[in-house]
């Protein structure tokens, strides 16, 4: 097992990883920007190194600085967390070249899944259902028109190198398709420096359902059931639940088994998430995330498994001691992402936390680096806390979530707590009756 892990991230996820390390008896190195010198995980870590100025490119995306920090602290592994360099295959290569273990899958798998077109082709080959569409980049508009007709409108134009909704356009007719393609190309070029786009069937009212997998380097693979992440705003997840209100045990087992088989065939190891759209009882692969997910705690709450611990173990070459048929998923869990934003306008609200009080009690978990007096920096993502609640049933979980939200105090800045309080009173949400558009419709976007 590792002696010392460098955590190449910030915020609540850096604290999450620090906690797993401490619990495994592994020393931690926090690397941080000048804006995060007072962060909770920096103070709790065994060692900390300031690696650059506040902008991410100077610090959390600064590969030479992170590798240098790992060298001078003698870290034997680097955990990339989520976001930042966590899906950067080049970084994973560099880490390995320096004789340090990258806590994640192989760089090849990251590269494969990082490109949407190659990912889709591979997944299709592995026998998982994909969204009907072209397997290749659009080079010719006329060809695209033919393909779109065969798929059937509406169709979606997506950037090959994209993510987060950038470079995505819906076309509902052949006329619309022409402009959608040129708009998507322009956006893709601007955001990813690559104007490659491709075509896909546009699903009208799908849910976003993702399967968590965990695999070791010895061919053992398990799935840890699904998460329903349909509540999104501008392609950003807002609230997630596990299991999905839309799946029954048979459907879960069936897709789970398919995914496990595919991952084993792929030879993938580490944690990973296969994201699907789910509509009319059918799954359609959208992408695979080759890293920990923000919403991993809800899976931990229903499976009893510490995903970060397992991720570190398999990165160190350990064998999984989990067997699919012995895994039990019990109860229901919901995560609310709490952002430093106006709950109405979603304008970011960085600043000083004057009061902080986290809810407690049975089956209530808070993952957050906040404390009274902490200054939320304006340079990064606005997510400042995750409230995760478990109940024996979905209803119990909702009731517990309601009371936990009542107890949560974050003063001095605006947060999305009121949005979550509103969400859990919506009849559609209470009934589990929502799709990926539901939240935006509710908010009138």
């Amino acid at each position, binding site marked *: 097992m590792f002696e010392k892990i460098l955590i190449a991230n910030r915020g609540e996820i850096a604290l999450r990883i620090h906690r797993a390390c401490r619990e495994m008896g592994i*020393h931690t190195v926090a*690397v941080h920007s*000048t804006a995060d010198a*007072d962060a*909770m995980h920096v*103070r*709790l870590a*065994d*060692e900390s*190194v*300031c*690696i*650059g*100025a506040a902008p991410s490119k100077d*610090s959390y995306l600064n590969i*030479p*600085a992170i*590798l*240098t*920090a790992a060298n*001078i*602290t003698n870290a034997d592994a680097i955990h990339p967390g989520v976001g930042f360099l966590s899906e950067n295959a080049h970084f994973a290569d560099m880490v390995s070249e320096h004789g340090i273990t990258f806590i994640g899958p192989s760089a090849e798998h990251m590269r494969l899944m990082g490109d949407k077109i190659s990912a889709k082709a591979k997944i299709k080959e592995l026998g998982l259902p994909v969204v009907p569409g072209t397997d290749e980049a659009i080079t010719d508009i006329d060809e695209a028109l033919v393909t779109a007709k065969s798929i059937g409108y509406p169709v979606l134009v997506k950037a090959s190198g994209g993510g987060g909704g950038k470079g995505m356009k819906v076309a509902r007719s052949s006329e619309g398709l022409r402009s959608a393609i040129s708009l998507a190309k322009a956006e893709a070029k601007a955001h990813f420096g690559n104007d490659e786009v491709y075509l896909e069937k546009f699903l009208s009212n799908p849910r976003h359902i993702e399967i968590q997998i965990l695999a070791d380097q010895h061919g053992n693979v398990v799935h840890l059931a699904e998460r329903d992440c349909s509540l999104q705003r501008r392609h950003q997840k807002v609230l997630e639940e596990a299991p999905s209100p839309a799946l029954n045990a048979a459907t879960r087992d069936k897709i789970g088994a398919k995914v496990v088989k595919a991952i084993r065939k792929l030879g993938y190891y580490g944690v990973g998430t296969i994201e699907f759209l789910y509509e009319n009882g059918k799954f359609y692969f959208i992408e695979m995330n080759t890293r920990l997910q923000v919403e991993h705690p809800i899976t931990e709450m229903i499976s009893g498994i510490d995903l970060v611990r397992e991720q570190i173990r398999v990165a160190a070459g350990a064998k999984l001691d989990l067997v699919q048929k012995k895994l039990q998923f019990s109860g229901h869990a919901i995560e609310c992402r709490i952002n430093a934003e106006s709950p109405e306008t979603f304008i970011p609200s960085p600043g000083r936390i*004057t009061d902080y009080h986290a809810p407690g009690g049975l089956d209530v978990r808070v993952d957050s680096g906040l*404390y*009274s*007096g902490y*200054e939320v920096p304006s340079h990064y993502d606005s997510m400042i806390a995750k409230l995760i609640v478990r109940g024996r049933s979905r209803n119990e979980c909702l009731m517990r979530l309601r009371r936990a939200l009542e107890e949560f105090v974050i003063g001095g800045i605006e947060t999305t707590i009121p949005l979550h309080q509103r969400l859990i009173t919506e009849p559609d949400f209470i009934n589990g009756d929502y799709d990926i558009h539901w939240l935006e419709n509710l908010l009138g976007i």
Partner: protein
Amino acid sequence: MAKFDIDGGLIRKLSKLLEETDLTEIEFESEGQRIRVARNSGGYRESYIPVAETGKQAGTAEEQAEKTASAKSDHPGAITSPMVGTAYVASEPESPPFVKVGDKIREGQTLIIVEAMKTMNPVLALRDGTVKEILVENGDPVEFGEALMIIE
């Protein structure tokens, strides 16, 4: 009792000064007269970090050193590290150091080298001055922004 002649305008002026200067207290004494004004700053301690002492495995001496270094980096004459890396005070292990305490230095002169990813990054003097203090030893690991030396 002699009439106590309070100058309200003076207090208001001091209050504004407190605000402007972000002081918490002003005390003034002159020809047998003394005035002092104070204001609480914030309602919580600045950059209070609620971490149990035991959370830190590193010794307190180290922490103390860290604090000192951090204080030094605020020094107006501090030369800070442009990156995380390893500091070298000389070009070769056997060579004399680039500069010594007391040396007069000129703008553009190499003061120290920070090595990162096997590249050597010279840290140059931005103006003329005198080396007051060298804060790192040869081969020390340094953080971004860490004070390397003081030039005056």
